[in-house]
């Protein structure tokens, strides 16, 4: 087993044994070497996304956890949020330049849940139309300029 698989195996164990509220690993989605995951996310109660269900797709390189995972919303329901593009790409600094190997699938999911929960107005990012037309398929290739973090 590679070091990526060993670590993901541990993360998977922890997340299935003691799953955080509103975050559930979709077991059927796991590829045999664990390099691809789908995580089901529930919009938290008392927030603008209450009752909505979303899916996050994770892709890991063999260099995980030194390389950040590729993370994006997938499926039919993409949350409408000022930091989430309509193609599922997420503008979140820990997914690129602020990544640290101390972060995990669980901490990434929780950051995204809290990013959704703190949203006060459902609206697309201001540059959504042009971004979705011109971006790379891999959100990690985007040179994000981080919008203000107040939202």
């Amino acid at each position, binding site marked *: 087993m590679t070091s990526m698989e*060993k670590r993901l195996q*541990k993360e998977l164990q922890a997340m299935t044994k003691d799953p955080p509220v509103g975050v559930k690993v979709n077991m059927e989605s796991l590829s045999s070497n664990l390099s691809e995951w789908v995580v089901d996310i529930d919009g938290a109660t008392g927030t603008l996304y209450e009752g909505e269900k979303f899916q996050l797709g994770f892709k890991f390189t063999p260099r995980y*956890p*030194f390389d950040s995972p590729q993370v994006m919303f997938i499926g039919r329901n993409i949350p409408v949020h000022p930091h989430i593009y309509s193609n599922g790409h997420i503008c979140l600094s820990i997914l690129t*330049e602020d990544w640290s190997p101390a972060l995990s699938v669980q901490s990434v999911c929780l950051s995204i849940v809290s990013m959704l929960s703190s949203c006060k107005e459902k609206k697309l990012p201001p540059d959504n139309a042009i971004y979705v037309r011109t971006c790379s398929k891999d959100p990690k290739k985007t040179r994000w300029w981080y919008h203000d973090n107040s939202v």
Partner: protein
Amino acid sequence: MGNCFKSSSNDDISLLRGNDHHDPALEPAPFVEPPPPYRPQQRMPIFHPSPGVSRPANQLTEDEQIKIAQRLGLINHLPTGKYDGTNKKAKECVICMNEFVFGDELRYLPCMHCYHRECIDDWLMRSFTCPSCMEPVDAALLTTYQTS
């Protein structure tokens, strides 16, 4: 008769002139080194000269090679030690998520977080920050090295 100053004739000088110009045809051919032997490169280390940039060691620019050598030097200045269980706070390496076992080789960062040496060295080559607290690893030391 007064003392007459006598200027030297040109004749003496002409005697000194030898045939000292170079004939390129007579010079030895410059020594050419043989090419280095071919080495299969299956285990070429990958380096990360800056965040998001990774390249095999043989494709680095000179500047990048210098930066990497400096970084390696800095990393080797950070203290190491074997896990002996005395530090109750440090139980697991957050990079590989394995618990420390007696005899594991650890490296200590200035913020007092510690990791397996192998795990953290890999990360420090990419980013000179502590994965746990994001504290820069002795930025002062880094700048003195870089400006010298």
